[in-house]
């Protein structure tokens, strides 16, 4: 699957504590600045790793789940549940 530039950009930008605070307070306003398709917007609501993981660099994915306060064991369990060919979507 091709890299989703805008999803990657969101995850990259969320390294900024001020943007993270804004994202927690008013997610829709922040997301409106990124060209994200409906499937990705739904996946962000539920942290659906099967949709998000194939679209971004794995380090950015890690950052995003850390910002989302998902603990490592849960994150790793989600990763291990991905289909073997998940990168080819």
């Amino acid at each position, binding site marked *: 699957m091709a*890299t989703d*530039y805008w999803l*990657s*950009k969101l995850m*990259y930008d969320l*390294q900024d*504590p001020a943007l993270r605070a804004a994202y927690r307070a008013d997610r829709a306003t922040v997301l409106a600045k990124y060209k994200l398709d409906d499937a990705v917007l739904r996946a962000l609501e539920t942290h659906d790793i099967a949709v998000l*993981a194939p679209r971004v*660099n*794995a*380090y*950015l*994915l*890690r*950052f995003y789940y850390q910002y989302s306060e998902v603990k490592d064991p849960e*994150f*790793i369990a989600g*990763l*291990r549940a*991905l289909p073997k060919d*998940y990168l080819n979507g």
Partner: protein
Amino acid sequence: MADLVGVFAASHAPLVARDWDNFSPSVREGLAVGYDKVGARLKAAAPDVILEIATDHWVNFFLDNLPSVCIGIGAENDGPPEPFMRRVYPYPTLIGHAGLGRHLAETALADDFEPAVSHRLTLDHGFCIPLWRAGLTPPPPIVPVLVNEIEPPMLSVRRCLEWGRLIARAIDTYPENIRVAILASGGLSHSIGEPSMGAIEVEFDEESIRLFDAGAEQPMIDYFEAKLPGAGNGGHEVRSWFIAHAAAGSRGFELLDYRPVPEVYVGCGFASWRME
């Protein structure tokens, strides 16, 4: 002429900083073995400048601008931005060495390499954990060399070795009489944000160590081009080690410590290259 006075490698897992105080004493003591040895060798080498090679972890660069190699040519760089680093690392800025950085960039361009340059970089945990845990507090001036080891496409093994030789030439031709050490940060096997996250490929790490110790480049090229994709995305950081290897003359190295550390998700390696 500048002198290359030592070439070293150390791993840099973020959890080393984030969880240091929470580790059991045995984990802390185990991790300290390698960092302490690298620190002792570096201090004994008494470098005026450390040329440090590491990847950027999405701090300076993003997908809209992602150089394969970027040389820091500024007089000063910013310290690590990560909150877990700011808690433990006391330096908000790190002194650069603009003269050597610029000379390296000019030498590269004259030799048909095309690096990016930056007059001010932000040096994340990849740069600062080895400096911190090795006890280089404060560190000497740093010439940072950022190598893309995080997002394909990446430098080939062969090109990394060529970069190492280029760095050695640049140090050798730098007109100021200074002592320069090289510190390669990163590796060995680890996996971050992938289904294999947490796995440490000990077999890969041990064969890597054997090849670095043996020194010959072609077996390294053959092995790593085939096996790097299976060593986890963090394993790509061993590119820093290839550069160090060739900069030291590809004569092999002395392993200072290796241990898989599941608590930090990394096969942690520490080494000092043979110079003669």
